[in-house]
């Protein structure tokens, strides 16, 4: 009833090709952005900013990066965390060694460094595919954190390889409180998500999808496989690199190379799979599911036990939380193997017919 596009006529190509062709979608997205920019800072507490919203946004960006590579270009990668590490360490070093460099430029340069490394480790993708490529990107995952610990120049000779992010100041304005950090990260993530949404509809994005669906056919119709795959690696690693820089500068403050381990790469891959392979929205849904649901479950279980006064052995809640979380993952994958984004799409289609379904 409410969500119906009848009566919305397109009179120009521009109107037909816009990002959100349905008026209700446009309104909803703008309302959501306005709420995130204005509403959330008014109501949320520091706990929400630092423990929930910040990791959600940072992981959304990393998931978006991996989704471009895996979901759109079809190249399976297990090196996400390593590319994040490159972004974080590069941004830190640009801040440290180039006097007076603006922080946003450092983030961009961090992303570009990650992109360069990503292209390097993407070279094997020209020869190997699928699971074998995943194993090749695993090399990045083991090599890069090792190198960052081994060469202590990267961490400015810290004895344990830990980097401590510099304060974020843009044009004299310090982003030092949780609210300010949140707003900065939100703006960066929103701009990059918009760019990604546009990119996947462009010639490059369509080339990625052609390569993903069948690379032989793609090359027959004139798509350069090498260029397309390497662009996918570069763009994906750029996103991961910026996410890594934000992870260090806005979220944690101090990071150790060991924090960017295989575990993190897997988590981000799971976010892509749960959220929806080849979907921008799915990246956000997947990140929300994997980072927020365990916290929600634990808070609920803790409160329920506190209210009912049952005394449980220590560690029981955490175990129970893992069991429930695992069960939910399996449940969602059975109900909708194409991820949460697909569920959302089905929901939207149903909404169009509501309240009179066939």
């Amino acid at each position, binding site marked *: 009833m409410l969500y119906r596009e009848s009566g919305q006529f397109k009179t120009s190509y521009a109107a037909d090709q816009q990002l959100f062709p349905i008026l209700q979608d446009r309104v909803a997205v703008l309302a959501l952005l306005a709420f995130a920019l204005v509403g959330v800072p008014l109501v949320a507490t520091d706990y929400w900013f630092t423990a929930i919203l910040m990791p959600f946004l940072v992981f959304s960006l990393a998931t978006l990066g991996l989704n471009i590579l895996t979901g759109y270009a079809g190249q399976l990668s297990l090196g996400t965390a390593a590319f994040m590490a490159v972004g974080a360490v590069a941004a830190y070093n640009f801040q440290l060694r180039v006097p007076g460099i603006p922080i946003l430029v450092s983030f961009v340069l961090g992303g570009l460094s990650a992109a360069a490394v990503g292209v390097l480790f993407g070279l094997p993708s020209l020869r190997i595919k699928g699971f074998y490529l995943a194993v090749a990107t695993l090399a990045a995952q083991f090599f890069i954190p090792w190198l960052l610990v081994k060469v202590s120049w990267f961490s400015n000779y810290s004895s344990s390889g830990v980097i401590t992010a510099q304060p974020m100041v843009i044009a004299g304005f310090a982003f030092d409180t949780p609210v300010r950090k949140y707003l900065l990260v939100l703006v960066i993530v929103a701009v990059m998500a918009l760019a990604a949404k546009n990119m996947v509809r462009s010639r490059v994005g369509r080339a990625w999808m052609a390569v993903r669906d069948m690379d032989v056919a793609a090359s027959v119709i004139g798509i350069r496989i090498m260029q397309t795959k390497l662009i996918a690696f570069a763009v994906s690693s750029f996103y991961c690199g910026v996410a890594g820089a934000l992870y260090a500068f806005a979220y944690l403050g101090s990071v150790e190379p060991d924090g960017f381990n295989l575990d993190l790469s897997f988590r981000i891959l799971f976010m892509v799979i749960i959220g929806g392979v080849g979907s921008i929205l799915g990246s956000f849904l997947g990140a929300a599911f994997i980072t927020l649901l365990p916290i929600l479950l634990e808070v609920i279980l803790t409160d*329920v036990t506190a209210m009912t006064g049952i005394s449980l052995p220590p560690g029981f809640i955490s175990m129970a939380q893992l069991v429930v979380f695992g069960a939910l993952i399996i449940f969602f994958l059975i109900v909708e193997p194409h991820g949460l984004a697909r569920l959302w799409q089905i929901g939207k289609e149903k909404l169009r017919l509501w309240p009179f379904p066939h």
Partner: protein
Amino acid sequence: MQPWKRTLIGLVAGLAAAASTVPASAQQAGTQFIGITGYRVGPYGANGAAFFGGFTDYLAMINERDGGVNGVKLSWEECETEYNNAKGVECYERLKTKSATGPTAIHPMSTGITYAILDKAVTDKIPLITLGYGRTDATDGRVFPWVFPILSNYWDAATGIVKFIGEKEGGAANLKGKKIVLLYHDSAYGKEPHPVLEAEAKKLGFDLKMIPVPHPGNEQQSQWLQIRQYQPNWVILWGWGVMSATALQTAQKVGFPRDKMVGNWWAGSEIDTVAAGPAATGYYAASLNLAGKGFPVVKDIEDKVYAKGKGGDAKLIGTVLWNRGVGAAMITVEAVRKAQEKYGKKPVSGEQVRWGIENLKLDAGRMKALGFNTMLPPLEVSCQDHGGSGQVRFQQWTGTEWKSASDWMKGDSALVRKMIEESAAKYAAEKGIKPGCAS
């Protein structure tokens, strides 16, 4: 809509409602709330279960035996971090808001989580106590007012081990020309002792060879082949997790005597030696605390807590890590007691607890009065020295238990102090901190 979907949606909505309506602070007012960022599941769950088991058992015992600290009852909540940095931050933020006085002091028990909350703790005014891990240079309290690497740090351990080896060789002078191998976990943790051991090698004239073991370290044939070719007099084992047990077993295979191997304290718990089986017999390890049940405080915990069925896993009592947890809880409780001396007998805030830790003085007499006897070294914290002791003690594995093999001893504290101050000054310059002591 199918019925199961309706049920599911109802369930999710119900859970969300439950989560939002429950008050954030379920703590009783008027108690000293202690927030615990612990881990009992995940890859290091076994270590965490022992440490945090001892920690909460001691707190429970204080409530049962003394009715709290000067009449102020203790309350606590444990949040599971799974040894994961992101979850550690979430736990820290959650515990921070649970009580008007904050979480008292946080024991992260993970170097990664320590680093992740280091900056936040300064702004939130919450002291961090890092017992034998974390940032070594935080010992300089003029640069790190909120971090307390109480007891000893990695550099104290490394120089202490060198001194212990020197004693076994009949004096430090005899170390000249000896060969020592550092077999280390190839990570930030394993690299910590490098600078200080290199300095010691130069100073005392022994040959040092450093051999990395890649994580997780369950395959060490090639490393031990190198060690056999090099024929060292001693091997220092800087291990973590499965690596320590594998090193002991491989040493037995290649015929290297285990009583010429010294581990640091993260390679010296029952979890490591029991896993290695008979191969571990004779192995030495540095320790922050003694193991065993022969201390009055352990008996008090058994009588007041376990006898009433309130304790955790009774099998853990008296193990190295469990005793360390008891010691860590005692330091927290004593800091609260000290803060109460100055600020009154009511729940004290993070800022007040910080003052309490910085002025904490536990001499041998006080340790005895607390029932700890020689389990921990005497402790005197000051603004200059946030470690407070710098002493380590060596234990030897007899095949069934850890037995004390030395008295409390200090490594090369002058060398360590100099390196700490250099490193802290560099950090201060990088972050724009003006070092100084709060009044």
